[in-house]
């Protein structure tokens, strides 16, 4: 299908238009409005239960949009999944499951490989390169569950990289992650952004939001701010979003 006109600027990777999402009849997040462009990174910030994970699921087309609109890479969310990578929290996965780190990374290629066929040489090379990009090339044969929490999170990021996504969605990727793994994750995310991928990171760690992202979407059931980190993470807005549970001093903000 040929596009009738060529747009002057590329469309945003992710476009929220006064979007509300709901499980069943109860709205979980309302009035989210903003854009994420290729190469940008946005932090979803908010307390537990703010609806960060639900919003991510809505971008994947797994939770319905009940008001407004979410557009992913110019398409409806469910139509864009092939180019979107989701990185779950590593500790939600069974550590006893008998797969190696290399096999987990290969899973990122399954959609490209298709039904019936087995991973080919190109898939294995892509998986090896992805594992190298997160600094775990030597762990390919190790069982996933024997790795540290941070290493497991890096393996899951490698799986996403092997998928060659245009948009990455990370759910609390820095939870329980040691400093080495945190640096490796930040490095890999930086390279992905330099390559033109857009990144959305949900986190409740404000310091990491500053490090990893240049924009913030501040949420608690509805949007409190969406914009450059310095403007969105003001003490006033944080207090509003966290309902007074944020400890705000001169220049340090600690959210609980």
């Amino acid at each position, binding site marked *: 299908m040929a596009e009738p006109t060529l747009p002057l600027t590329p469309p945003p990777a992710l476009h929220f238009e006064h979007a509300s999402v709901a499980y069943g009849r109860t709205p979980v997040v309302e009035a989210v409005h903003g854009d994420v462009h290729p190469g940008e990174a946005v932090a979803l910030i908010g307390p537990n239960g703010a609806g960060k994970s639900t919003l991510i699921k809505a971008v*994947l087309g*797994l939770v319905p949009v009940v008001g407004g609109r979410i557009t992913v890479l110019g398409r409806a969310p*469910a139509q864009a*999944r*092939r180019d*979107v*990578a*989701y990185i*779950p929290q590593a500790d*939600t*996965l*069974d550590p006893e*499951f*008998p*797969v*190696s780190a290399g*096999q*987990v990374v290969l*899973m990122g290629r*399954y*959609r490209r*490989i298709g*039904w*019936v066929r*087995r*991973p080919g040489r190109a898939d294995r090379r892509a998986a090896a390169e992805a594992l190298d990009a997160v600094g775990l090339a030597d762990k390919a044969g190790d*069982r996933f569950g*024997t*790795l*540290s929490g941070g290493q497991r999170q890096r393996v899951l990021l490698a*799986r996403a990289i092997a*998928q060659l996504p245009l948009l990455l*969605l990370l759910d609390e990727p820095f939870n329980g992650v040691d400093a080495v793994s945190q640096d490796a994750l930040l490095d890999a995310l930086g390279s992905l952004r330099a390559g033109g991928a857009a990144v959305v990171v949900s986190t409740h760690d404000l310091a990491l939001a500053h490090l990893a992202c240049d924009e913030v979407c501040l949420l608690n059931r509805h949007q409190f701010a969406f914009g450059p980190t310095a403007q969105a993470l003001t003490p006033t807005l944080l207090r509003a979003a966290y309902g007074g549970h944020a400890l705000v001093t001169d220049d340090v903000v600690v959210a609980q």
Partner: protein
Amino acid sequence: MLYRLLVEPFGFPFMARALTEAMLLGVLGGVVSVAVVLRRFAFVSDALTHTVFPGVVIGFMVAGAGGIVWGALVFAVFSAVLLTVLSSNRRVTEDATLAILLTGFFSVGVVLVSRRSSYTADLTAFLFGRILTVDRREILETAVVTVLVLAVLAVLGKELLLRAFDPDGSAALGYRVGLLDLALNVMVALVVVAAVKAVGTLLVIALLVVPAAAARLLTDRLALLVGASVLVGVLGGWLGLAVSYHASVYYGLRLASGATVVLALVALYAVAFAVGSARRMVSHHAPAAERA
């Protein structure tokens, strides 16, 4: 001695047929049990073995022994679909749904059998199987199901692996998790159908769980897991038949062959448990062992 125990009994045609059937079921159960154990599907599989029971009874009442497979097949697919649909309702938890289906269907079967004059004999055959009387056609049926299930696993193997490991991740990649679950349900149901004549509806669950559970104690590697599981399945069938033959011929003990096969499987599980524990203890004490 070993020859006398393991080879000699199968010189008789009926024992050779029983062995062929047991081997096929060992391969089938060995492969499918890996999917069952990885997906933590043991209880679901157990429910399916019970929901197939009324189909076995109805098939037998309508068309005699030849109707059992068809009755079982109809009920297997019906209950696999029903199970998938009902467990998507979040208000009642899956284990409660399973318990209702399991007992409901099973009771239908028992009520139907109880109307017959040969109640006890029939019930025993349906529940525990008669592997020593399997004929050529039944072996062929088992072979067809084995080929069918292996073909489905060739198509869906890696997707089922991903779904078992990371359900959210597979949904995010665009896979229909519900359909993958249905595929596994149907495969389990097909194993029940194939095995019902030989080991009965009650004992087939052993075939669907024990081989992979035993193999899992021995290895962390997926490829080895499938191989070891098939080996346990085949070995269990062979040993079980050999032991029940010897007990009956040389010691005058009539052991139910199907149940003896299950006991052989469980014995192999116990061996795997001992070997696995011993190996873990050795690696704990080894100085170079790296543990996360």
